[in-house]
């Protein structure tokens, strides 16, 4: 894939209309490269549709891709500056990993450009480090945690632990889940034996042994991307999933993991596929979108493809509402903006620029007829967006106080 190339997606003659330039910074190499590739598909699909229908304010959308290499904060900052100062990006969409997103959000005032985050899920992005240029059209860990905890609280398990990547997203994801779980079910015991392998660790045997020896009844895992795939391969060898009562992963089992693991996907584990599973909701609109996606790209849509698609349409709507590409005007246009995404209705909350939308959690099951992945997320329970949204006063309080989120007490690295 040409990670640096510029993308002009139409044969139509645009005459003198200058393109609206959108920089897409995602992980096109490294352990979550599959997520960057998915993000590109969704964004380009939206851009193709929009350009074929006459563009935005009569101007075509032009994209340029930059690779944040999955892990490198300094590179992410450099690429963001390059897109704005060198290429002249009008808008930025970006970041799979919260590590790189959190590094770039603080420099947005320097760039004076809007960034829409369609994937990275650390709540800090729209609370502690937030500034007015930062938007997220995707559910974050607190929303997913609240929805997951509602299901977890109904299960008969009380001893919970975690195996997660040792960085902001991993901590926040588990912390938010644990907070909601303890609130809903005070008898839950958060174990002190936890496993925090580093991002892109590659080897999990000793962590698996350590967790199994502590005999948890249920395990939560914010591992994702190739880390989760590798973990599953190693954990399967240890019969890990049969030895714990329940296993929850918010982002581990997104479409990339289904493609990589296929029949090896452990059955009966809980996931929200990072916020979107292509078979849900069972509406004509979603079906039509999935069909269009499959015919365009030859594969099933990944959650990140869905979200970058939505991000591009958000930009279109806001630019048209503002009647200009001026950053300040588009910020105001985006605040409170509603969207019927292919899946659920989205509303960007005015105060923190965080999307409020529904969250699906389901259970993995065999699906021999579902070619080519042969597994699926089934029995989906949908949590209502308003019910799992972080209360505004809490967000504003955390933004004002800064520092570390309150749930860090549940992260125990001994």
């Amino acid at each position, binding site marked *: 894939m040409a990670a640096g190339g510029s993308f002009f997606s139409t044969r139509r003659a645009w005459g003198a209309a200058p393109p609206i330039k959108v920089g897409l910074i995602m992980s096109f190499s490294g352990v979550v490269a599959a997520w960057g590739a998915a993000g590109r598909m969704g964004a380009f699909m939206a851009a193709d549709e929009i350009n074929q229908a006459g563009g935005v304010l009569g101007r075509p959308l032009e994209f340029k891709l930059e690779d944040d290499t999955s892990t490198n904060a300094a590179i992410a900052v450099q690429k963001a500056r390059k897109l704005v100062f060198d290429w002249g990006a009008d808008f930025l969409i970006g970041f799979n990993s919260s590590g790189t997103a959190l590094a770039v959000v603080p420099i947005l005032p320097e760039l004076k450009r809007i960034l829409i985050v369609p994937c990275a899920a650390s709540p800090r992005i729209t609370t502690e480090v937030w500034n007015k240029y930062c938007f997220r059209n995707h559910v974050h860990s607190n929303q997913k945690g609240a929805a997951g905890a509602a299901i977890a609280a109904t299960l008969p398990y009380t001893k919970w632990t975690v195996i997660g990547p040792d960085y902001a997203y991993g901590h926040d994801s588990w912390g938010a889940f644990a907070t909601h779980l303890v609130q809903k079910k005070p008898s839950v015991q958060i174990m*002190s034996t936890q496993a925090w392998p580093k991002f892109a660790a590659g080897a999990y045997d000793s962590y698996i042994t350590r967790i199994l020896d502590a005999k948890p009844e249920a395990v939560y895992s914010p591992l994702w991307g190739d880390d989760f795939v590798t973990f599953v391969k190693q954990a399967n*060898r240890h019969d890990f999933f049969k030895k714990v009562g329940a296993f929850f992963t918010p982002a581990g089992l997104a479409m990339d993991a289904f493609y990589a693991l296929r029949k090896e996907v452990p059955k009966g584990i809980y996931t929200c596929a990072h916020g979107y599973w292509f078979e849900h909701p069972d509406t004509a609109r979603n079906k039509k979108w999935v069909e269009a996606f499959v015919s365009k790209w030859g594969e099933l849509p990944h959650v990140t493809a869905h979200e970058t698609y939505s991000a591009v349409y958000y930009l279109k709507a806001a630019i048209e509402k503002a009647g200009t590409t001026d950053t300040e005007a588009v910020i105001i246009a985006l605040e409170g903006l509603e969207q019927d995404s292919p899946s659920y209705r989205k509303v960007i909350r005015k105060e923190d620029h965080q999307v409020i939308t529904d969250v699906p959690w389901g259970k993995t099951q065999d699906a021999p007829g579902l070619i080519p992945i042969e597994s699926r997320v089934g029995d989906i329970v949908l949590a209502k967006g308003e019910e799992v949204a972080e209360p505004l006063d809490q967000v504003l309080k955390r933004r004002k106080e800064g520092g570390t989120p309150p749930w860090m007490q549940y992260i125990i690295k001994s």
Partner: protein
Amino acid sequence: MSIAEDIAMMRADSFVAYVLNGLVQASCLFLLASGLTLIFGVLRILNFAHAALFMLAAYLAAQVITSTGSFWLALVLVPAVMALVGAALERALLRRVYDVPVPYQLLLTFGVILVIKDLIKLTWGTASRTIAEPPALRGATSVLGRDYPLYNLFYIAIIAVVAVGLWVFLHHTQFGKRIQAAAADREMASAMGINVPGIYTAVCAAGTALAALLGVFHGPMMNIHLDVDHQYIVEAFAVVVIGGLGSVPGALVGSLLVGMLDSFGILLIPRFQMAFIYMVMAAVLIVRPQGLFGPREG
């Protein structure tokens, strides 16, 4: 939970599991470090690109396995191809820098890393990949009453065989003895009629083949992506330095030490686990710079 409680609570079967996990780590490090130290011992070049060659082998293995579905074919094919790559590397590049100062040698092999990486990127793209163990080696088996992954046991066993084989080869074959002679004194070996340049090429090929073997064996245990070499190369350096630069038995002991530290580190003090290896490395260099098994110099 305190460390003391952790130890007190540890049952015999857990202990065995940690030892086995440590052996897996040690096996991995040994296969990488033995090639590195062998090449250093004979060529006197610290090959920075060694882990990049291991990474290349892992990509090749992934390719062979995806195309043919056979792990075992990869096991034969990849080391053979990589041995040729190693030989070519010595003939084309390393041979020209035996007499230049160390920094230039390091720089040359560093340049090789850059070239290898972009060649991988050109061939296979930037997305990472994983490979599966052969179906026969899936699942777990009971070791002293505890289930342990079959593949890990196979991995430990096979690398133990390689270690023994390497020792026999170096000490009990004619060719191995010639290698030792060439390593000890180049001029003398040459005067005795040993084809020293040929030996150098062969050693570089063999060392690279060892890294390639690891590329195949370790493939099912890791994410294969363009940055994996970064971590492995410093760990291999650490092992080689701890054991003694140029010493194959040293590499074995160094690997075992680091492997166990790694495994039990995750159990006891996960916070310091990453630093352990470098603490040992520094301590050895301060107290005994030539390493545990290196010959005293000067």
